[in-house]
């Protein structure tokens, strides 16, 4: 399965391109910073530390749809990076820890949805959520921080995929733009 993923033409295309991986990785950073930035707005509201003058439901309506858009961007770009070197990432401990933390973050969110959020009518305008909601919010911040740290560690503990046919060094932006390169 992992070997097959690495042999797909998409994976080969990304590996062989000089620009694809850096651009996908940059887009991943844009996605993940927006995920964390918007989730932090929600969590700080639940904890009673920011936006306390706004009803929770209104804040959630303003914020969470952007979290999901950003999450899809991060997930798609993450998957694209994964397939370029699937067997290496799969066996990397930081990668595994990151996936575990993502599952815990999802579980944490699910707990919130089926408990505290069901009673939102009672606390929507309160400065902070009930104790369980505050615990979920604090845990959410910790888990997502963990996702960022383990994610960054993956880059330091894996080597880039071996490229079957290395891109010639002279193929770069100038060539792409048709500029005369300096010999």
């Amino acid at each position, binding site marked *: 399965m992992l070997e097959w993923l690495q042999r797909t033409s998409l994976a080969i295309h990304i590996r062989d391109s000089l620009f694809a991986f850096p651009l996908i990785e940059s887009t991943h950073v844009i996605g993940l*910073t927006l995920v*964390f930035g918007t989730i932090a707005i929600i969590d700080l509201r639940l904890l009673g530390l920011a936006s306390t003058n706004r009803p929770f439901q209104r804040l959630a309506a*303003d914020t969470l749809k952007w979290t999901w858009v950003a999450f899809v961007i991060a997930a798609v770009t993450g998957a694209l990076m994964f397939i370029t070197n699937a067997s290496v990432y799969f066996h990397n401990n930081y990668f595994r820890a990151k996936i575990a933390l993502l599952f815990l973050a999802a579980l944490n969110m699910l707990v919130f949805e089926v408990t505290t959020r069901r009673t939102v009518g009672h606390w929507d305008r309160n400065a902070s959520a009930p104790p369980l909601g505050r615990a979920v919010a604090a845990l959410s911040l910790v888990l997502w921080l963990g996702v960022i740290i383990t994610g*960054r*560690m993956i880059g330091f503990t894996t080597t880039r995929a071996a490229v079957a046919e290395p891109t010639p060094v002279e193929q*770069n*932006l100038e060539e792409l733009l048709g500029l005369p390169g300096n010999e």
Partner: protein
Amino acid sequence: MKQFALWLSTTSPSVYIQEHNTWAIPAIQSIHIVGIALVMGSVLMIDLRILGWAWVDQTLRQTMNRFGPWLTGALWLLLVTGILMVIGEPVRELVTFSFWLKMVLVAIGATVAIVFQRMVRRHEQRWEDTLVHSPSVKAAAILTFLIWVCIIFLGRLIAYDHVWGSWSPSEQQ
């Protein structure tokens, strides 16, 4: 700049980070990413308010009061962690095209953030009544967001500066 970077890499703070690079560099970078996240979240919300897509029950001033301090605070955090990364890996950072283009955009982005906060505070009524509805301010909001997106791209491209070809000083050795 190469000379300066090489000198910087021999100073004791730099040597300290280099000797502890297995945890120091990823740790600093992770904090830097958290700072970027706070900037992106804040800029997104302020821009959505200007576009009328979110926070419409709040005035522009109220939205600024909520996110302005976080934006400014995060920019300071980014400056500190950014300087630490330059000290830790001077040649990797300073001898790249991506880094310097990023710095130009950061200067623009940070100036916009600070000047905008001041203007809204000083001419509050005019901003709430007319300016926030003007197409050029809405366009500026989108442009500002795109500047931060480009900054993230350039920040990550520091690690891949060869994509710039001969524009990258690290390729000219």
